[in-house]
């Protein structure tokens, strides 16, 4: 069956097209998405007649001089043919008709529409309509039974149905197709065709095959397929004789089958491989016209089917594969595949010349850019959920509901003491939220009419206006927001970060280097993560900035890359409760900023290690360093928790990914470095003027030293002396002494010798550093002393003296040594407690187990004893500091509880101090006019120079020694403490006052010191402020005292 493929020609603008012949076969009629119907006399017709029938034409049918078209105005129109005059409207749908067809006689038209209906309309009387309902998706195609009894239709709901027209009922239905929601998205147009004349078979294109169904039995009787056809068939058409079936596919393959033998008799490929969407057989059966989705018209000529019915049997065995090449006119492919044509291949239906493939396009297979992750709020679930968490943090939960009945926001606080729960109607459509102890911050994106809005519910405000709102400039949307202490920040789509005060004053704004991913606030710190550039192969390129407001405004991290795991994105960003930046990526790795290692990020946990299932995740809600907790919500099989049932928080431990953590050594190393890392925040907090938990700090240090000691012992056991020395280098001086003892007891004299060298070196180092340290660390220490002292009442000062050796950080050691020196200068004969302790240690452990000084290890173990043992009266105050949230020094909510305790004046003093620290300048003024009143807490400051007990000790040392001449130095101190405590409170007070006075007049050394300090103060304004406030602690007059008292009472 030889045929000739004529070159294609342009017919319509690109889009869906359809084609048919007129009754006589004289004209080819096409329609297209340009709304025209064109009447071609032949393919070579250079001036086809155009009839405009609408904006777009989806389908057309022609018979008896009546042209029926389905246009985009939802009507089915009639035009006369070939004149093209409008001849009325046949029917209407609620949306456009997708396919129309005539019955054989041309008395009826069937039309299928996107509104799921099929209508059968009489041509002579359009009011006679039959509607076939039953499809549940847009109709793809319709076809009439040539005997006018049935009608077949295909729909996007995946079914092909056969209807009895008269009864308007469905006879049968097959679920053959892939479901889709619209004709445009359907995989195939699925143009059905009913065999003409015999009307026995219904052809249904299903994927790459055509299935044949038998009339009446409705059983599948055959399948026509072609091995070369790899893409879905779009349209099928029967030859007028009913013996051949032509099919056009998505890939542009045209196939003709002999239905009888089910063999492929003709195969042609569209010259450009475009989708064939219209196919019509010439009434004579010798020609096929087809159109494609690019609007081109083509013709296959020379099919001699019906005329040579006798020869078909012969020719059916001979398959001719004509592969045609590119347009002859195309200069770019002169001879490429041109004469691939006409190779007869008898016996085999398949000749797969691989070279037919579409022309090669240059293929890029390098790294592909990753779509940048969208901005999000840490601790929120995705915005498309109807019920979602807009924020879950350590303060509370903000839930958003957006369903049919309700668009609302619920705010709930974990601690009901902060505020009661709130329910807001979300009329503005807020999508992002943040929550702090002071306020709720909400924001909505802008719409066409409304600008993006930022709303703040400042519930902690003391006036009656608890709410403010800000409109952003047109076209600028809030993408991320956060709350800090006393400020709010919003990052917008204009790459601007806007700062607001919590009361609604607009503050600074600055530009971001890239589109924001998320921001987080804590205290006076702001953490911003943004897109630094484009990531490739699944990676994100994120940058991070850490800014610090408050007194010294500075940028701590200047846009360094954020280290995410491979092929992951950021999933949570925030601060630990102690204020250390922290983030989690989608691989579940938690990373913490290591401030002591040049602001590097250290992985501290992999939450996925704790998951049971592969698709389980942990959804982070908070990180705490003390106690070491990762608070998160386990989500089974998802990344996000549902709002109901209410998810429960779980606590995960930190675990540094150190090597060999199954061994004892690895475990201890992990514990040690974790402890070091997670106690970094003490340094940060004290340097930025926050109150810190001194007890916790010393405990942590003890823990660390204890671990070092254990590791030391372990490596000694393993005969690793070099390693032991390495470990000893990490130890503080006191513990090195212990290590020496351990080494000498286990008869490792070489090790002991090295260690004692090391201890000596450390001691020298300390002394060498001393002047420097005084300069650098003193302000810091002052702050710490001050802040700590408020809860330590008078007796503790005694304990401070005695327990000083327990403060093992070098700063403290240095300080006490300095103390010691000053004391030595006064009375050289009396060595300081600390030095004596060390020497005592060095000699032997004879001093007995109850002496905490001698048995450092013991004291490290039972560290909690310290505050309670001696502070029986004020002991409970020490325990109040467990609250996980940061407490700035200035507002002191704790004083309420403290006021109930015995020492009313201690919190009072703390209050005063707090007030002073807020306004150091005022304090200084006051200090000049007011003489220092005697408040016990003040002594704590002075003890730096000399405390009451020390003075008393100096005076009474002789007496004690005389009474008990055989006492060791440490025991002398113990005895002294006992005696000092037996003194009446008044006596002690006099001593402490004397100590104060002495610091003023007796020691000229002190004066020199102060001079030094003042000259230093010029250099550093901050430290001066700290120092002066620390030194001149007590300038508050009685009325201020009273008012402070009143405040406590309330």
């Amino acid at each position, binding site marked *: 069956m030889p045929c000739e493929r004529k070159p294609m020609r342009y017919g319509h603008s690109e889009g869906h097209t359809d084609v048919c012949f007129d009754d006589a076969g004289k004209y080819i009629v096409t329609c297209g998405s340009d709304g025209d119907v064109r009447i071609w006399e032949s393919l070579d017709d250079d001036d086809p007649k155009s009839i405009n029938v609408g904006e777009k034409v989806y389908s057309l049918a022609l018979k008896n001089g009546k042209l029926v078209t389905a246009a985009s105005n939802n009507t089915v129109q009639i035009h006369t043919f070939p004149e093209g005059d409008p001849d009325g409207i046949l029917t209407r749908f609620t949306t456009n008709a997708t396919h129309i067809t005539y019955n054989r006689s041309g008395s009826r038209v069937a039309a299928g529409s996107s509104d799921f209906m099929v209508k059968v309309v009489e041509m002579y009387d359009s009011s006679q309509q039959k509607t076939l309902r039953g499809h549940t998706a847009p109709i793809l195609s319709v076809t009439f039974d040539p005997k006018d009894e049935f009608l077949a239709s295909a729909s996007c709901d995946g079914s092909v149905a056969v209807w009895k027209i008269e009864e308007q009922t469905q006879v049968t239905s097959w679920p053959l197709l892939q479901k889709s929601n619209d004709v445009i998205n359907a995989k195939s147009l699925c143009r059905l065709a009913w065999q003409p004349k015999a009307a026995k078979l219904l052809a249904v294109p299903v994927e790459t095959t055509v299935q044949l169904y038998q009339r009446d039995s409705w059983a599948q009787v055959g399948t026509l397929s072609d091995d070369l056809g790899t893409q879905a068939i779009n349209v099928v058409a029967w030859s007028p004789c009913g013996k051949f079936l032509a099919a056009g596919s998505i890939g542009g393959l045209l196939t003709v089958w002999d239905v009888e033998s089910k063999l492929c008799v003709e195969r042609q490929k569209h010259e450009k491989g475009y989708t064939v969407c219209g196919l019509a057989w010439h009434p004579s059966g010798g020609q096929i016209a087809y159109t494609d989705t690019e609007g081109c018209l083509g013709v296959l000529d020379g099919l001699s089917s019906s005329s040579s019915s006798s020869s078909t049997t012969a020719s059916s065995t001979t398959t001719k594969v004509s592969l045609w090449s590119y347009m002859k006119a195309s200069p770019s492919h002169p001879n490429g595949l041109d004469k691939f044509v006409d190779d007869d291949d008898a016996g085999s239906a398949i000749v797969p010349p691989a070279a037919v493939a579409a022309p090669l396009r240059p293929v890029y297979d390098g790294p592909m850019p990753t779509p940048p992750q969208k901005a999000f709020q840490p601790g929120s679930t995705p915005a498309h959920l109807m019920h979602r968490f807009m924020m879950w943090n350590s303060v509370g939960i903000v839930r958003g509901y957006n369903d049919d009945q309700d668009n609302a926001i619920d705010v709930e606080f974990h*601690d*009901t003491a902060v505020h009661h729960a709130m329910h807001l109607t979300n009329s503005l459509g807020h999508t992002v939220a943040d929550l702090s102890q002071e306020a709720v911050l909400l924001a909505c994106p802008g719409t066409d009419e409304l600008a993006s809005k930022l709303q703040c519910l400042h519930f902690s405000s003391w006036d009656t206006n608890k709410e403010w709102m800000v409109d952003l400039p047109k076209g600028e949307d809030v993408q991320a927001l956060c709350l800090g202490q006393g400020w709010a920040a919003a990052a917008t789509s204009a790459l601007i970060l806007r700062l607001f005060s919590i009361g609604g004053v607009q503050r600074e704004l600055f530009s971001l280097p890239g589109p924001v991913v998320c921001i987080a606030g804590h205290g006076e710190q702001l953490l911003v993560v943004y897109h630094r550039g484009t990531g490739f192969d699944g990676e994100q390129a994120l940058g991070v900035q850490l800014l610090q407001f408050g007194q010294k405004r500075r940028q701590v991290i200047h846009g360094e890359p954020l280290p995410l795991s491979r092929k992951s994105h950021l999933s949570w960003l925030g601060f630990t409760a102690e204020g250390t930046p922290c983030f989690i990526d989608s691989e579940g790795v938690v990373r913490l900023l290591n401030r002591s290692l040049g602001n590097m990020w250290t992985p501290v946990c992999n939450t996925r290690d704790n998951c049971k299932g592969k698709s389980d995740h942990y959804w982070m809600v908070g990180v705490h360093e003390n106690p070491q907790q990762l608070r998160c919500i386990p989500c089974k099989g998802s990344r996000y928790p549902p709002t109901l049932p209410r998810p*429960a*928080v779980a606590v995960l431990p930190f675990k540094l990914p150190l090597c060999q953590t199954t061994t004892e050594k690895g475990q201890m190393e992990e514990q040690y470095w974790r402890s070091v890392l997670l106690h970094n925040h003490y340094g940060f907090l004290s340097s930025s003027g926050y109150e810190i938990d001194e007890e916790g700090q010393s405990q942590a240090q003890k823990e660390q030293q204890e671990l070092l000691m254990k590791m030391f012992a372990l490596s000694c056991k393993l005969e690793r002396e070099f390693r032991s020395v390495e470990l000893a280098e990490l130890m503080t001086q006191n513990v090195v002494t212990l290590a020496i003892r351990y080494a000498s007891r286990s008869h490792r004299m070489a090790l002991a010798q090295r260690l004692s060298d090391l201890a000596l070196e450390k001691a020298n180092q300390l002394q060498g550093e001393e002047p420097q340290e005084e300069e650098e660390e003193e302000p810091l220490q002052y702050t710490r002393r001050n802040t700590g002292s408020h809860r330590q009442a008078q007796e503790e000062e005694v304990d401070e003296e005695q327990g000083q050796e327990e403060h093992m950080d070098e700063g403290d050691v240095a300080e006490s040594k300095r103390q010691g020196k000053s004391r030595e200068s006064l009375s050289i004969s009396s060595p300081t407690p600390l030095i004596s302790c060390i020497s005592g240690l060095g000699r032997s452990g004879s001093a007995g187990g109850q002496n905490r000084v001698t048995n450092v290890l013991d004291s490290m173990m039972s560290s909690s004893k310290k505050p309670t043992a001696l502070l029986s009266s004020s002991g409970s105050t020490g325990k*109040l500091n467990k609250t996980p949230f940061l407490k700035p020094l200035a507002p002191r909510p704790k004083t309420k509880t403290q006021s109930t305790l015995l020492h009313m004046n201690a919190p009072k003093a703390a209050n005063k101090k707090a007030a002073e620290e807020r306004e150091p300048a005022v304090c200084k003024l006051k200090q000049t006019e007011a003489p220092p009143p005697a408040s016990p807490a003040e002594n704590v400051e002075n003890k730096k120079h000399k405390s009451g007990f020390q003075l008393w000790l100096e005076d009474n040392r002789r007496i004690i020694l005389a009474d008990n001449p055989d006492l060791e130095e440490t025991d002398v101190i113990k005895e002294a403490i006992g005696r000092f405590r037996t003194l009446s409170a008044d006596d002690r007070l006099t001593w402490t006052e004397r100590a104060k006075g002495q610091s003023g007049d007796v020691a000229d050394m002190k004066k020199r010191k102060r001079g030094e300090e003042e000259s230093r103060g010029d250099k550093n304004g901050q430290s001066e402020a700290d120092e002066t406030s620390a030194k001149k602690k007590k300038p508050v007059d009685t009325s201020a005292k009273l008012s402070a008292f009143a405040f406590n009472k309330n």
Partner: protein
Amino acid sequence: MDPSEVEFLAEKEVVKIIPNFSLDKIYLIGGDLGPFNPGLPVDVPVWLALNLKQRQKCRIVPPEWMDVEKLEEIRELERKEDTFTPVPSPYYMELTKLLLNHASDNIPKADEIRTLVKDIWDTRIAKLRLSADSFISQQEAHAKLDNLTLMEINTTRSFLLDTLNCMYKLRSNLQPGSSGGKAQDHQ
């Protein structure tokens, strides 16, 4: 033993609560509790949980077994087996009653759980009666019943003991000569 005493014992069981207040560790004779952090689950005895709940200071997290699916499983198993099956908690009945009465708003599907636990209880009590019946009718000297909870023993104890006493008296009062026939009749 009074049922209220058994309930008192059950109140020592530990449940998880989510407090909405902040409090440091509290030191009690029975052990230390806390620290209480708002929003963070913490284990406390039932009596404290209920007390806090009544003061609206916390939400109670229902025990793991207090879940419709798990209870349905247990119920089916209990119905299938002739012997007593292990119960999820030695105080399941008391805990269900206490928690559902005081904190039903914190327990999803509270009504279903109540019905399920009641079903389990009924099944077990029926078994208990049945075994008591066969114990007496076969005049056994001893019997072994595993997996019984205190509350279940308690419901049957006084009645069973009194009955046995009574029957013993009746039997011992009978004349030895006629006892055989009469006793048999009695049974």
